[in-house]
């Protein structure tokens, strides 16, 4: 078993284990902590597969932006919390599991860096330059469609998230009494 395979299978095991923990937690914040670990492990798998651009974007967009959105929404819900949970953040059990899994990923990264690899483990299969020239060459129509999709998502989220209107849909209308 080569070094790349060991790194890959360790990251795959962490990804599967943390995903299993995500879908079984009852506390939303605990599940989101494990979700971050799952995304980081998938980023390590991208790195081993020779896709450093996808690995970086996985960390920035998924583990950064999307999970932050989830955390913000959970925080907004907790403003109207049914029951107070004092010291839930400071308990060791809350963050010991995600911290241990993240420590394994950190150890993998340190080992990879200590072996002198600068651009991924093996030869980079698909360099970011090729991805960029393909994205803005053959797939430029898709880029424009994605821009329109994101604009529609921004407008839709701003419209749905606004507090002012009474209802946006007949599902949310008050029943006639």
């Amino acid at each position, binding site marked *: 078993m*080569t070094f*790349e*395979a060991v790194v*890959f299978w360790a990251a795959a095991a962490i*990804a*599967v284990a943390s*995903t*299993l923990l*995500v*879908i079984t937690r009852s506390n*939303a914040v605990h*599940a989101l902590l494990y*979700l971050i670990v*799952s*995304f980081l492990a*998938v980023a390590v*798998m*991208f790195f081993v*597969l*020779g*896709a450093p*651009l*996808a690995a970086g*974007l*996985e960390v920035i*967009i*998924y583990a950064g*932006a*999307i999970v932050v*959105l*989830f955390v913000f*929404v959970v925080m*907004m*819900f907790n403003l109207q919390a049914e029951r107070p949970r004092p010291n839930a953040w400071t308990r060791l059990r809350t963050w010991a599991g995600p911290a241990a899994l993240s420590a394994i990923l950190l150890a993998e990264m340190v080992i990879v860096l200590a072996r002198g690899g600068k651009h991924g*483990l*093996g030869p980079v*299969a*698909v360099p970011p330059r*090729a*991805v960029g*020239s*393909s*994205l803005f060459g053959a*797939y430029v129509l*898709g880029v424009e469609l*994605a821009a329109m*999709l*994101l604009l529609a*998502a*921004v407008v*839709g*989220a*701003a*419209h*749905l*998230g606004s507090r002012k209107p009474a209802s*946006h849909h*007949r*599902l*949310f209308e008050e029943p006639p009494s």
Partner: protein
Amino acid sequence: MSSVPYESVIVVAGVLFVLGLAGLLARRNLLFVLVSLEIMVNAAGLAFVAAGSRWGRPDGQVVFLFILAVAAAEVSVGLALLLQIRRHFKTLDSNAAGTMKG
């Protein structure tokens, strides 16, 4: 492509996808439904990147970028809907929003 076999990466992506599907079917909390959708989308992206790396083509990562944009759009609209449902039904149980009018 390094020494990891392509088929095993696809198996890992399938396992992650099935875990997301199980969470989607098992959980009643709408927040966890959205999280499970993210897991499934992420597993599909892993399969695309693995295929692109298998044949040494940039198309896999390009499609992964599109998946990223779609996931971001989906989660932003989904969470806004979640806020509306929470505000109206005072709960996140998907059974509460399961009845239709008309």
